[in-house]
């Protein structure tokens, strides 16, 4: 029974980890760029939800209707006017620009929201229910559903819509795609917008699950890295599987060594099989 409990918790937790890596894997796969600001974007999403929910007096989940479009716009503008410009100068300047962005945003949030711990509470934050003798937290199930819906929606979007096809074409070969009439610059901006939107969802989830600080971006970024690298850069299903595996490892490793384990896993995968377990493009 204990093992079943651990596996259940691991899977529920893992879906949130997958969500953390989702935006990053998109940028890896489509824009071929490392977005070092992704962790800070997630924290931004968490703050937006935590501020909006009490102001509007609604359940935190419904703040997504506001934060997702807002963050999409932010990401679009950022990529179109800033990161895209840096990418013309090479990979490394772009990497440094995202690094600079993460530092700027993090300290700006520190100024606005102070260094205090934050948490997004909902009516069902501490509720539990029993099923087949397992104790399951309502919150975890809600987050699990949000994650699955988000990942599923993104997968459908990439595979079933015109823009999704254009995105995949650009990811395969930007030059050929632009010859076929796809505006690569715009696609990159849309991809960054989607990544930011997913960061908004991820932010809500981590904000409801754990306490967060303005300086939490670094640890979310590292979790995202682990998930992205293990799942194979740019693979959406790979991200889900990697997230679940990682969640299981965390639950088994316990709270004290969870973070250390994640770093070690990441290093081993980077050294042994850098293309990831399911190394395939979007």
């Amino acid at each position, binding site marked *: 029974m204990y093992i079943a409990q651990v596996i259940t918790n691991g899977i529920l937790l893992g879906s949130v980890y997958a969500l953390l890596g989702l935006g990053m894997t998109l940028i890896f796969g489509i824009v071929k760029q*490392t977005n070092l600001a992704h962790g800070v974007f997630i924290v931004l999403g968490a703050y937006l939800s935590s501020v909006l929910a009490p102001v509007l007096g609604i359940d935190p989940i419904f703040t997504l209707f506001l934060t997702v479009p807002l963050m999409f716009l932010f990401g679009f503008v950022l990529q179109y006017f*800033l990161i895209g410009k*840096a990418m013309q*100068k090479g990979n490394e300047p772009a990497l440094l*620009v995202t690094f600079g*962005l993460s*530092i*700027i945003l993090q*300290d700006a949030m520190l100024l606005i929201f102070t260094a205090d711990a934050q948490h997004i509470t909902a009516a069902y934050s501490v509720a539990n229910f029993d099923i087949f003798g397992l104790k399951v937290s309502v919150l975890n199930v809600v987050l699990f559903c949000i994650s699955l819906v988000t990942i599923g929606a993104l997968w459908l979007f990439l595979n079933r819509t015109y823009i999704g096809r254009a995105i995949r074409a650009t990811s395969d070969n930007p030059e050929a795609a632009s010859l076929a009439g796809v505006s690569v610059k715009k696609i990159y901006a849309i991809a960054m917008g989607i990544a930011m939107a997913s960061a908004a969802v991820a932010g809500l989830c981590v904000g409801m699950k754990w306490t967060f600080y303005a300086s939490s971006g670094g640890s979310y970024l590292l979790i995202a890295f682990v998930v992205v690298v293990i799942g194979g850069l740019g693979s959406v299903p790979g991200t889900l599987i990697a997230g679940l595996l990682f969640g299981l490892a965390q639950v088994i490793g316990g709270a004290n060594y969870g973070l*250390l384990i994640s770093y070690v896993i990441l290093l081993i995968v980077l050294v042994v099989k850098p293309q990831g377990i399911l190394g395939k493009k979007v």
Partner: protein
Amino acid sequence: MNKLSPAKHRSRVLDSMPLLIGCIVVIIALYGVLISGIASNNVMRYMIQIFLYIILGEMWNLLSGYAGMTSLGQQLYIGLSGYTVAVATSTFKLPLGTGILLAVIVCTVISLIMSLILFRMEGMYFSIATWVVAEMFSTFFFSWKFVGQGSGMTIRVTPYPKMFDICILSLTFCVGALVIVYMLLRTKIGLGLTAMRDDITAAPSVGVDQIGHKLVVYVIAAVFIAFAGSVFVINKGIIYPDNGFTIGWTVSMIFIVVVGGKGTFSGPIVGAIIYVFLQEYLAHFPGWSNIILGIITILVILFLPDGIVGTLQKKLHFELFSAKRISFPKER
């Protein structure tokens, strides 16, 4: 790269004897100013910072500017050296000099071990991995009882070195670092590094032993960052995971090199001086300093990608202390 300069833009290499002698005079003058006691404590405080940040900048420049290793984790060696000095002096009551020596040895050994892991990766993977390694050590030190966990350790030596001693020490290490970098660039390794700077993929095809060059640079960087890190910690008197292993060190190194001029010898010197004065000025606006530094760095990357020294060199067709052997006349 795609911006090959046409023949008429050949630049003069400025490293003639008079210039070298000029540099030596400047260094002797700096020692003279310190020993004669003209420099007030406030001036020395600035000097210490500038000397140490020059070391950090030159090392990051070697790594990223020449060898194509954009490390986001050099703070690892600052933390390690700081902790080694603290443990040596406070726990084992060793003299300060031994502590610094031990710090350098520890960093050399760790850098050799790390190179085994890190050199399997390139580009952004390398950057990510260096950061992860630094974070890993930070987490580990955070929970390690022997080094005081999160609250860290203080440096306890009697008599505690005065501002003057620390200043002389940092000047000496800084001169040492500059001499080593200069000598390195004058050797065959320097030519190889310059080739790697200009085109990392083409360099091996003309016989540059990439891994060997990277190893030399990575270990030298670890050694001198260990020197600088020990003095930083002695100057501060305390080390804890959040100031030893903070990503802030990398932020400052990137700023210094990008603003000064990447892949140039004198760029980091200019960058370090700007950084220290800017940092000092920004201290009046608590919380804003990293925001402003970040914005400046991004603006420089976008609009002045060669940095201050790099842009001047291109505009005025000269190179200070370049690895190039031949000096072309300005215009034929």
